[in-house]
Protein backbone atom coordinates (compact mmCIF):
# COMPACT_ATOMS: atom_id res chain seq x y z
CA UNK A 1 0.00 0.00 0.00
CA UNK A 2 2.67 2.50 1.11
CA UNK A 3 6.38 1.79 0.98
CA UNK A 4 9.18 4.17 2.01
CA UNK A 5 12.75 3.13 1.22
CA UNK A 6 15.65 5.19 2.58
CA UNK A 7 13.60 8.36 2.31
CA UNK A 8 14.94 11.82 3.11
CA UNK A 9 13.10 15.10 2.74
CA UNK A 10 13.95 18.80 2.80
CA UNK A 11 11.96 21.97 2.18
CA UNK A 12 13.46 23.96 -0.70
CA UNK A 13 17.14 24.42 0.20
CA UNK A 14 16.66 23.92 3.94
CA UNK A 15 18.14 21.11 6.02
CA UNK A 16 16.84 17.56 5.81
CA UNK A 17 13.86 17.22 8.15
CA UNK A 18 13.60 13.47 7.53
CA UNK A 19 16.49 11.08 7.06
CA UNK A 20 16.67 7.40 6.20
CA UNK A 21 13.02 6.54 6.71
CA UNK A 22 12.10 2.99 5.72
CA UNK A 23 8.79 1.24 6.39
CA UNK A 24 5.93 -0.57 4.75
CA UNK A 25 2.22 -0.16 5.45
CA UNK A 26 0.19 -3.20 4.47
CA UNK A 27 -3.28 -2.82 3.04
CA UNK A 28 -5.87 -2.73 5.83
CA UNK A 29 -3.30 -1.85 8.54
CA UNK A 30 -3.68 0.83 11.22
CA UNK A 31 -0.64 2.85 12.32
CA UNK A 32 -0.01 5.70 14.68
CA UNK A 33 2.78 8.09 13.72
CA UNK A 34 4.26 9.80 16.74
CA UNK A 35 7.15 11.91 17.94
CA UNK A 36 7.67 15.27 19.57
CA UNK A 37 6.55 18.47 17.92
CA UNK A 38 8.88 19.38 15.06
CA UNK A 39 10.06 15.77 14.61
CA UNK A 40 8.73 15.65 11.06
CA UNK A 41 5.37 13.87 11.39
CA UNK A 42 3.53 16.30 9.14
CA UNK A 43 6.40 16.25 6.67
CA UNK A 44 6.29 12.46 6.44
CA UNK A 45 2.54 12.54 5.88
CA UNK A 46 3.01 15.15 3.14
CA UNK A 47 5.16 12.65 1.30
CA UNK A 48 2.52 10.00 1.81
CA UNK A 49 -0.42 12.08 0.52
CA UNK A 50 1.63 13.22 -2.49
CA UNK A 51 1.92 16.85 -1.54
CA UNK A 52 5.72 16.88 -1.57
CA UNK A 53 8.48 14.79 -3.09
CA UNK A 54 11.29 13.00 -1.30
CA UNK A 55 14.76 14.47 -1.79
CA UNK A 56 16.29 10.99 -1.56
CA UNK A 57 14.99 7.44 -1.54
CA UNK A 58 11.78 6.02 -2.99
CA UNK A 59 8.19 6.59 -2.00
CA UNK A 60 5.76 4.05 -3.41
CA UNK A 61 2.01 4.51 -3.01
CA UNK A 62 -0.39 1.89 -4.38
CA UNK A 63 2.63 0.40 -6.10
CA UNK A 64 3.51 3.60 -7.98
CA UNK A 65 6.96 5.11 -7.54
CA UNK A 66 5.91 8.72 -7.03
CA UNK A 67 9.08 10.20 -8.45
CA UNK A 68 8.52 8.61 -11.85
CA UNK A 69 4.72 8.74 -11.94
CA UNK A 70 3.51 11.10 -14.69
CA UNK A 71 1.74 14.18 -13.36
CA UNK A 72 -1.50 13.28 -15.11
CA UNK A 73 -1.85 10.10 -13.04
CA UNK A 74 -1.53 11.89 -9.69
CA UNK A 75 -5.18 13.04 -9.42
CA UNK A 76 -6.30 9.42 -9.73
CA UNK A 77 -3.93 8.31 -6.96
CA UNK A 78 -4.85 11.25 -4.73
CA UNK A 79 -8.54 10.40 -5.01
CA UNK A 80 -7.77 7.06 -3.38
CA UNK A 81 -6.22 8.89 -0.42
CA UNK A 82 -8.36 10.72 2.15
CA UNK A 83 -6.56 13.40 4.15
CA UNK A 84 -7.64 15.08 7.37
CA UNK A 85 -5.35 18.09 7.63
CA UNK A 86 -4.09 19.34 10.95
CA UNK A 87 -5.72 22.73 10.30
CA UNK A 88 -8.79 21.21 8.53
CA UNK A 89 -8.30 23.33 5.40
CA UNK A 90 -12.01 23.80 4.82
CA UNK A 91 -13.21 26.32 2.23
CA UNK A 92 -14.65 29.17 4.27
CA UNK A 93 -17.11 30.40 1.65
CA UNK A 94 -18.73 27.00 1.16
CA UNK A 95 -21.33 25.27 3.36
CA UNK A 96 -20.47 22.06 5.20
CA UNK A 97 -22.40 20.26 2.48
CA UNK A 98 -20.41 21.84 -0.39
CA UNK A 99 -17.10 21.32 1.40
CA UNK A 100 -17.74 17.61 1.61
CA UNK A 101 -19.26 17.50 -1.88
CA UNK A 102 -16.09 18.98 -3.37
CA UNK A 103 -14.32 15.62 -3.09
CA UNK A 104 -16.97 14.06 -5.32
CA UNK A 105 -17.48 17.02 -7.67
CA UNK A 106 -13.85 17.05 -8.71
CA UNK A 107 -14.31 13.39 -9.64
CA UNK A 108 -17.25 14.26 -11.88
CA UNK A 109 -19.91 12.44 -9.84
CA UNK A 110 -23.53 13.35 -10.67
CA UNK A 111 -25.13 16.07 -8.51
CA UNK A 112 -28.09 13.98 -7.33
CA UNK A 113 -25.78 11.18 -6.19
CA UNK A 114 -23.60 13.76 -4.43
CA UNK A 115 -26.55 15.32 -2.60
CA UNK A 116 -27.74 12.01 -1.21
CA UNK A 117 -24.28 10.75 -0.20
CA UNK A 118 -23.16 13.98 1.43
CA UNK A 119 -26.32 14.39 3.51
CA UNK A 120 -26.09 10.78 4.64
CA UNK A 121 -22.44 11.00 5.67
CA UNK A 122 -22.83 14.33 7.45
CA UNK A 123 -25.74 12.86 9.41
CA UNK A 124 -23.58 9.90 10.29
CA UNK A 125 -20.91 12.17 11.81
CA UNK A 126 -23.64 14.03 13.69
CA UNK A 127 -23.94 17.11 11.51
CA UNK A 128 -27.29 16.33 9.88
CA UNK A 129 -28.68 19.63 11.10
CA UNK A 130 -25.68 21.74 10.07
CA UNK A 131 -25.60 20.94 6.35
CA UNK A 132 -25.79 24.56 5.23
CA UNK A 133 -23.60 26.08 7.92
CA UNK A 134 -20.33 27.67 6.80
CA UNK A 135 -17.12 26.76 8.66
CA UNK A 136 -16.96 30.11 10.45
CA UNK A 137 -20.18 29.23 12.31
CA UNK A 138 -18.98 25.74 13.29
CA UNK A 139 -17.10 24.76 16.44
CA UNK A 140 -13.65 23.17 16.11
CA UNK A 141 -15.13 19.76 16.75
CA UNK A 142 -17.73 20.28 14.05
CA UNK A 143 -15.13 21.52 11.58
CA UNK A 144 -13.06 18.47 12.38
CA UNK A 145 -15.98 16.21 11.49
CA UNK A 146 -16.64 18.09 8.24
CA UNK A 147 -12.96 17.63 7.37
CA UNK A 148 -13.21 13.93 8.15
CA UNK A 149 -16.38 13.60 6.09
CA UNK A 150 -14.61 15.25 3.16
CA UNK A 151 -11.69 12.85 3.57
CA UNK A 152 -13.79 9.68 3.65
CA UNK A 153 -16.73 10.46 1.31
CA UNK A 154 -14.81 9.17 -1.70
CA UNK A 155 -14.20 5.81 0.10
CA UNK A 156 -10.43 6.15 0.03
CA UNK A 157 -8.35 3.04 0.50
CA UNK A 158 -5.80 5.06 2.49
CA UNK A 159 -6.88 7.48 5.22
CA UNK A 160 -4.29 9.91 6.60
CA UNK A 161 -5.05 12.12 9.60
CA UNK A 162 -2.60 14.71 10.93
CA UNK A 163 -3.17 15.38 14.67
CA UNK A 164 -6.92 14.86 14.33
CA UNK A 165 -7.41 15.22 18.07
CA UNK A 166 -5.14 18.23 18.49
CA UNK A 167 -7.74 20.94 18.79
CA UNK A 168 -10.63 19.13 20.43
CA UNK A 169 -11.37 17.69 23.86
CA UNK A 170 -10.66 14.12 24.85
CA UNK A 171 -14.21 12.80 24.50
CA UNK A 172 -14.54 14.18 20.96
CA UNK A 173 -11.07 12.85 20.17
CA UNK A 174 -12.07 9.34 21.23
CA UNK A 175 -15.21 9.51 19.11
CA UNK A 176 -13.14 10.38 16.05
CA UNK A 177 -10.65 7.61 16.65
CA UNK A 178 -13.48 5.12 17.03
CA UNK A 179 -14.79 6.31 13.70
CA UNK A 180 -11.38 5.56 12.20
CA UNK A 181 -11.47 2.09 13.78
CA UNK A 182 -14.73 1.47 12.07
CA UNK A 183 -13.37 2.59 8.70
CA UNK A 184 -10.34 0.38 9.27
CA UNK A 185 -12.62 -2.58 9.99
CA UNK A 186 -14.18 -2.21 6.53
CA UNK A 187 -10.73 -2.32 4.93
CA UNK A 188 -9.37 1.24 4.95
CA UNK A 189 -5.66 1.58 5.65
CA UNK A 190 -5.29 4.22 8.37
CA UNK A 191 -2.36 6.40 9.47
CA UNK A 192 -2.91 8.81 12.35
CA UNK A 193 -0.22 11.26 13.44
CA UNK A 194 -0.37 12.29 17.09
CA UNK A 195 2.04 13.37 19.78
CA UNK A 196 -0.40 12.20 22.48
CA UNK A 197 1.15 9.06 24.04
CA UNK A 198 -1.91 8.39 26.26
CA UNK A 199 -4.04 8.11 23.16
CA UNK A 200 -1.65 5.63 21.59
CA UNK A 201 -1.65 3.56 24.76
CA UNK A 202 -5.42 3.14 24.61
CA UNK A 203 -5.24 1.32 21.32
CA UNK A 204 -3.25 -1.65 20.24
CA UNK A 205 -1.90 -0.41 16.94
CA UNK A 206 1.55 -0.36 15.46
CA UNK A 207 3.51 2.83 15.99
CA UNK A 208 5.86 4.68 13.67
CA UNK A 209 8.10 6.80 15.89
CA UNK A 210 10.21 9.77 14.92
CA UNK A 211 12.60 10.77 17.69
CA UNK A 212 16.01 12.45 17.74
CA UNK A 213 16.40 11.97 14.01
CA UNK A 214 15.74 8.24 14.39
CA UNK A 215 12.86 6.45 12.73
CA UNK A 216 11.58 3.24 14.34
CA UNK A 217 8.57 0.94 13.92
CA UNK A 218 7.12 -0.54 17.12
CA UNK A 219 4.37 -2.92 18.17
CA UNK A 220 2.78 -5.93 16.62
CA UNK A 221 -0.75 -4.68 16.18
CA UNK A 222 -3.77 -6.91 15.91
Amino acid sequence: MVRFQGVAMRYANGPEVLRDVTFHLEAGSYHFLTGPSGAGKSSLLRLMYLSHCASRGTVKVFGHDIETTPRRLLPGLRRRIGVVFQDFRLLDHLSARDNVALSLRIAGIKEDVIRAHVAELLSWVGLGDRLDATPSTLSDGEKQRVAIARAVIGRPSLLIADEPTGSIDEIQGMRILRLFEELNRIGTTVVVATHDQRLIARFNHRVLRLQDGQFTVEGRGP
Partner: protein
Amino acid sequence: MARRPYDLPFAQDGSGRFLPWIIALMVYLAALASIAALATREAVSRWNAGLEGTATVEIAPALDSAGTDAAVAAAVALLRATPGVATVAVVPADEIARLLEPWLGPDAARSGLPLPRLIDLTFAPRARVDFAALGGTLVSAVPSARLDTHSQWLDRLQALGQSVQIAALAIVLLIAIAAGATVVFATRSGLAVHRELIELMHLIGSRDSYIAQQFQSHALSLALRGGALGVALGAGTVGALAVVSRPIQGALLPDLSLGASSIVALAALPLIAGAIALVTARITVLRALRKMP
Protein backbone atom coordinates in the same frame (compact mmCIF):
# COMPACT_ATOMS: atom_id res chain seq x y z
CA MET B 1 -32.73 26.78 -7.41
CA ALA B 2 -29.95 29.19 -6.57
CA ARG B 3 -26.76 28.87 -8.55
CA ARG B 4 -24.09 26.83 -6.77
CA PRO B 5 -21.19 29.02 -5.65
CA TYR B 6 -17.82 28.62 -7.31
CA ASP B 7 -15.51 26.21 -5.47
CA LEU B 8 -12.98 29.03 -5.34
CA PRO B 9 -14.08 32.22 -3.52
CA PHE B 10 -13.89 34.56 -6.51
CA ALA B 11 -16.44 36.88 -4.94
CA GLN B 12 -13.95 37.77 -2.22
CA ASP B 13 -10.95 38.62 -4.35
CA GLY B 14 -10.44 42.01 -5.92
CA SER B 15 -8.61 40.68 -8.95
CA GLY B 16 -11.79 40.17 -10.94
CA ARG B 17 -13.62 43.25 -9.77
CA PHE B 18 -12.15 45.63 -12.34
CA LEU B 19 -12.40 43.21 -15.25
CA PRO B 20 -16.03 43.89 -16.26
CA TRP B 21 -15.36 47.64 -16.36
CA ILE B 22 -12.28 47.29 -18.53
CA ILE B 23 -14.08 44.87 -20.82
CA ALA B 24 -17.02 47.30 -20.98
CA LEU B 25 -14.70 50.09 -22.08
CA MET B 26 -13.02 47.89 -24.66
CA VAL B 27 -16.27 46.59 -26.09
CA TYR B 28 -17.53 50.17 -26.22
CA LEU B 29 -14.53 51.27 -28.31
CA ALA B 30 -14.78 48.16 -30.49
CA ALA B 31 -18.48 48.88 -31.03
CA LEU B 32 -17.73 52.42 -32.22
CA ALA B 33 -14.99 51.20 -34.55
CA SER B 34 -17.21 48.45 -35.99
CA ILE B 35 -20.09 50.82 -36.58
CA ALA B 36 -17.80 53.31 -38.29
CA ALA B 37 -16.52 50.56 -40.58
CA LEU B 38 -20.00 49.26 -41.37
CA ALA B 39 -21.41 52.73 -42.03
CA THR B 40 -18.52 53.51 -44.37
CA ARG B 41 -19.02 50.26 -46.23
CA GLU B 42 -22.71 50.97 -46.68
CA ALA B 43 -22.05 54.51 -47.90
CA VAL B 44 -19.41 53.37 -50.40
CA SER B 45 -21.61 50.64 -51.79
CA ARG B 46 -24.51 53.10 -52.06
CA TRP B 47 -22.37 55.54 -54.05
CA ASN B 48 -21.04 52.67 -56.09
CA ALA B 49 -24.46 51.36 -56.95
CA GLY B 50 -25.54 54.87 -57.94
CA LEU B 51 -22.61 55.50 -60.24
CA GLU B 52 -21.67 52.10 -61.56
CA GLY B 53 -22.80 51.43 -65.08
CA THR B 54 -22.99 55.14 -65.85
CA ALA B 55 -20.75 57.66 -67.53
CA THR B 56 -21.00 61.28 -68.60
CA VAL B 57 -19.85 62.83 -71.86
CA GLU B 58 -18.94 66.48 -71.59
CA ILE B 59 -19.01 68.63 -74.74
CA ALA B 60 -17.00 71.84 -74.51
CA PRO B 61 -18.87 74.87 -75.83
CA ALA B 62 -18.16 75.80 -79.44
CA LEU B 63 -18.00 79.40 -80.67
CA ASP B 64 -21.73 79.53 -81.17
CA SER B 65 -24.56 77.43 -79.78
CA ALA B 66 -25.29 75.96 -83.24
CA GLY B 67 -21.76 74.52 -83.32
CA THR B 68 -22.27 73.10 -79.86
CA ASP B 69 -25.61 71.59 -80.85
CA ALA B 70 -24.01 69.96 -83.89
CA ALA B 71 -21.26 68.47 -81.75
CA VAL B 72 -23.85 67.15 -79.27
CA ALA B 73 -25.89 65.62 -82.10
CA ALA B 74 -22.82 63.95 -83.59
CA ALA B 75 -21.79 62.55 -80.20
CA VAL B 76 -25.32 61.29 -79.48
CA ALA B 77 -25.46 59.56 -82.86
CA LEU B 78 -22.11 57.88 -82.27
CA LEU B 79 -23.01 56.80 -78.74
CA ARG B 80 -26.41 55.41 -79.79
CA ALA B 81 -24.61 53.26 -82.34
CA THR B 82 -22.11 51.95 -79.77
CA PRO B 83 -22.87 48.39 -78.65
CA GLY B 84 -23.41 48.07 -74.84
CA VAL B 85 -24.73 51.62 -74.41
CA ALA B 86 -28.24 51.31 -73.03
CA THR B 87 -29.45 54.89 -72.80
CA VAL B 88 -28.18 58.24 -74.01
CA ALA B 89 -29.75 61.35 -72.48
CA VAL B 90 -28.76 64.91 -73.18
CA VAL B 91 -28.92 66.98 -70.02
CA PRO B 92 -31.16 69.97 -70.84
CA ALA B 93 -29.38 73.30 -71.05
CA ASP B 94 -31.44 74.92 -68.31
CA GLU B 95 -30.53 72.12 -65.92
CA ILE B 96 -26.85 72.76 -66.60
CA ALA B 97 -27.48 76.42 -66.00
CA ARG B 98 -29.10 75.47 -62.69
CA LEU B 99 -26.09 73.31 -61.78
CA LEU B 100 -23.78 76.19 -62.54
CA GLU B 101 -25.97 78.80 -60.88
CA PRO B 102 -23.85 79.02 -57.73
CA TRP B 103 -20.86 80.10 -59.81
CA LEU B 104 -22.41 81.97 -62.72
CA GLY B 105 -25.48 83.58 -61.20
CA PRO B 106 -29.19 83.04 -61.91
CA ASP B 107 -29.13 84.47 -65.45
CA ALA B 108 -26.41 82.27 -66.88
CA ALA B 109 -28.69 80.48 -69.34
CA ARG B 110 -30.15 83.64 -70.79
CA SER B 111 -26.90 85.60 -70.84
CA GLY B 112 -25.71 83.80 -73.95
CA LEU B 113 -22.64 82.69 -72.08
CA PRO B 114 -21.20 79.59 -73.78
CA LEU B 115 -22.03 76.64 -71.52
CA PRO B 116 -20.71 73.12 -71.81
CA ARG B 117 -23.24 70.37 -72.50
CA LEU B 118 -23.55 67.03 -70.74
CA ILE B 119 -24.77 63.68 -72.03
CA ASP B 120 -25.64 61.01 -69.45
CA LEU B 121 -24.95 57.43 -70.48
CA THR B 122 -25.99 54.17 -68.96
CA PHE B 123 -24.61 50.83 -70.02
CA ALA B 124 -26.35 47.52 -70.40
CA PRO B 125 -25.97 45.50 -67.13
CA ARG B 126 -23.35 43.00 -68.25
CA ALA B 127 -21.87 44.88 -71.19
CA ARG B 128 -18.08 44.89 -71.39
CA VAL B 129 -17.41 48.33 -72.73
CA ASP B 130 -13.82 49.35 -73.49
CA PHE B 131 -13.91 52.87 -72.09
CA ALA B 132 -10.49 53.87 -73.43
CA ALA B 133 -11.44 52.86 -76.98
CA LEU B 134 -14.83 54.54 -76.67
CA GLY B 135 -13.17 57.75 -75.41
CA GLY B 136 -10.71 57.67 -78.36
CA THR B 137 -13.45 57.10 -80.95
CA LEU B 138 -15.50 59.86 -79.42
CA VAL B 139 -12.66 62.41 -79.48
CA SER B 140 -11.68 61.59 -83.04
CA ALA B 141 -15.30 62.02 -84.17
CA VAL B 142 -16.14 64.99 -81.95
CA PRO B 143 -12.93 66.75 -80.82
CA SER B 144 -14.74 68.84 -78.17
CA ALA B 145 -16.12 65.70 -76.41
CA ARG B 146 -14.63 64.14 -73.29
CA LEU B 147 -15.76 60.84 -71.69
CA ASP B 148 -15.91 60.75 -67.88
CA THR B 149 -16.54 57.29 -66.47
CA HIS B 150 -16.40 58.43 -62.81
CA SER B 151 -13.81 55.72 -62.40
CA GLN B 152 -11.24 57.98 -60.84
CA TRP B 153 -13.75 59.31 -58.32
CA LEU B 154 -15.03 55.80 -57.58
CA ASP B 155 -11.52 54.41 -57.20
CA ARG B 156 -10.66 57.08 -54.67
CA LEU B 157 -13.89 56.46 -52.84
CA GLN B 158 -13.24 52.73 -52.71
CA ALA B 159 -9.70 53.33 -51.45
CA LEU B 160 -11.00 55.66 -48.76
CA GLY B 161 -13.64 53.16 -47.74
CA GLN B 162 -11.09 50.37 -47.58
CA SER B 163 -8.69 52.44 -45.47
CA VAL B 164 -11.42 53.21 -42.99
CA GLN B 165 -12.35 49.55 -42.79
CA ILE B 166 -8.77 48.35 -42.38
CA ALA B 167 -8.18 50.94 -39.68
CA ALA B 168 -11.35 49.86 -37.88
CA LEU B 169 -10.38 46.20 -38.15
CA ALA B 170 -6.91 46.96 -36.81
CA ILE B 171 -8.44 48.86 -33.89
CA VAL B 172 -10.78 45.98 -33.08
CA LEU B 173 -7.87 43.51 -33.26
CA LEU B 174 -5.73 45.66 -30.95
CA ILE B 175 -8.63 45.90 -28.52
CA ALA B 176 -9.04 42.11 -28.63
CA ILE B 177 -5.34 41.66 -27.85
CA ALA B 178 -5.53 44.17 -25.02
CA ALA B 179 -8.62 42.39 -23.67
CA GLY B 180 -6.77 39.06 -23.81
CA ALA B 181 -3.80 40.55 -21.96
CA THR B 182 -6.10 41.99 -19.31
CA VAL B 183 -7.71 38.62 -18.76
CA VAL B 184 -4.26 37.01 -18.49
CA PHE B 185 -3.24 39.44 -15.74
CA ALA B 186 -6.54 39.14 -13.90
CA THR B 187 -6.34 35.35 -14.07
CA ARG B 188 -2.73 35.29 -12.89
CA SER B 189 -3.56 37.45 -9.94
CA GLY B 190 -6.54 35.20 -9.20
CA LEU B 191 -4.22 32.19 -9.32
CA ALA B 192 -1.87 33.86 -6.86
CA VAL B 193 -4.68 34.85 -4.50
CA HIS B 194 -6.20 31.37 -4.48
CA ARG B 195 -2.95 29.45 -4.58
CA GLU B 196 -3.51 27.67 -1.28
CA LEU B 197 -7.00 26.51 -2.20
CA ILE B 198 -5.82 25.36 -5.61
CA GLU B 199 -3.14 23.33 -3.87
CA LEU B 200 -5.82 21.85 -1.63
CA MET B 201 -7.98 20.98 -4.62
CA HIS B 202 -5.01 19.23 -6.19
CA LEU B 203 -4.44 17.29 -2.98
CA ILE B 204 -7.98 15.98 -2.86
CA GLY B 205 -7.56 14.78 -6.44
CA SER B 206 -8.73 17.63 -8.64
CA ARG B 207 -7.47 17.72 -12.21
CA ASP B 208 -6.10 20.94 -13.71
CA SER B 209 -9.03 21.07 -16.10
CA TYR B 210 -11.52 21.16 -13.21
CA ILE B 211 -9.72 24.15 -11.69
CA ALA B 212 -9.43 25.81 -15.10
CA GLN B 213 -13.17 25.31 -15.51
CA GLN B 214 -13.76 27.43 -12.41
CA PHE B 215 -11.59 30.27 -13.67
CA GLN B 216 -12.93 30.18 -17.21
CA SER B 217 -16.61 30.29 -16.25
CA HIS B 218 -15.88 33.13 -13.86
CA ALA B 219 -14.00 35.05 -16.58
CA LEU B 220 -16.80 34.34 -19.07
CA SER B 221 -19.46 35.72 -16.78
CA LEU B 222 -17.42 38.85 -16.00
CA ALA B 223 -16.70 39.47 -19.68
CA LEU B 224 -20.32 38.95 -20.74
CA ARG B 225 -21.49 41.41 -18.11
CA GLY B 226 -18.88 43.98 -19.10
CA GLY B 227 -19.54 43.36 -22.80
CA ALA B 228 -23.27 43.90 -22.43
CA LEU B 229 -22.65 47.21 -20.69
CA GLY B 230 -20.10 48.29 -23.32
CA VAL B 231 -22.35 47.45 -26.23
CA ALA B 232 -25.30 49.21 -24.63
CA LEU B 233 -23.17 52.34 -24.25
CA GLY B 234 -21.97 52.00 -27.86
CA ALA B 235 -25.50 51.67 -29.22
CA GLY B 236 -26.56 54.63 -27.10
CA THR B 237 -23.72 56.77 -28.42
CA VAL B 238 -24.44 55.91 -32.06
CA GLY B 239 -28.15 56.46 -31.56
CA ALA B 240 -27.46 59.89 -30.11
CA LEU B 241 -25.07 60.74 -32.97
CA ALA B 242 -27.67 59.65 -35.52
CA VAL B 243 -30.24 61.97 -33.96
CA VAL B 244 -27.83 64.90 -33.80
CA SER B 245 -26.54 64.42 -37.36
CA ARG B 246 -29.91 63.88 -39.05
CA PRO B 247 -30.46 67.52 -40.11
CA ILE B 248 -27.08 67.75 -41.86
CA GLN B 249 -27.17 64.31 -43.37
CA GLY B 250 -26.67 64.53 -47.11
CA ALA B 251 -25.14 62.28 -49.69
CA LEU B 252 -21.72 62.58 -48.11
CA LEU B 253 -22.39 61.70 -44.46
CA PRO B 254 -22.77 57.99 -43.94
CA ASP B 255 -26.09 56.90 -42.53
CA LEU B 256 -25.57 56.27 -38.82
CA SER B 257 -28.88 54.61 -38.03
CA LEU B 258 -28.36 50.98 -37.07
CA GLY B 259 -29.00 48.58 -39.91
CA ALA B 260 -29.43 44.84 -39.52
CA SER B 261 -25.76 44.09 -40.06
CA SER B 262 -24.71 46.66 -37.44
CA ILE B 263 -27.09 45.15 -34.92
CA VAL B 264 -25.68 41.67 -35.57
CA ALA B 265 -22.13 43.01 -35.24
CA LEU B 266 -22.99 44.77 -31.99
CA ALA B 267 -24.69 41.71 -30.54
CA ALA B 268 -21.66 39.61 -31.44
CA LEU B 269 -19.18 41.85 -29.59
CA PRO B 270 -20.01 40.77 -25.99
CA LEU B 271 -20.01 37.15 -27.15
CA ILE B 272 -16.59 37.60 -28.74
CA ALA B 273 -15.37 39.28 -25.55
CA GLY B 274 -16.76 36.34 -23.57
CA ALA B 275 -15.06 33.82 -25.84
CA ILE B 276 -11.72 35.64 -25.59
CA ALA B 277 -12.01 35.74 -21.79
CA LEU B 278 -12.95 32.06 -21.54
CA VAL B 279 -10.20 30.77 -23.79
CA THR B 280 -7.53 33.09 -22.39
CA ALA B 281 -8.39 32.24 -18.78
CA ARG B 282 -8.34 28.52 -19.52
CA ILE B 283 -4.97 28.62 -21.26
CA THR B 284 -3.49 30.85 -18.56
CA VAL B 285 -4.62 28.52 -15.77
CA LEU B 286 -3.55 25.33 -17.49
CA ARG B 287 -0.12 26.75 -18.23
CA ALA B 288 0.34 27.97 -14.67
CA LEU B 289 -0.89 24.74 -13.07
CA ARG B 290 1.45 22.60 -15.11
CA LYS B 291 4.24 24.05 -12.98
CA MET B 292 2.54 23.11 -9.71
CA PRO B 293 3.08 19.75 -7.99
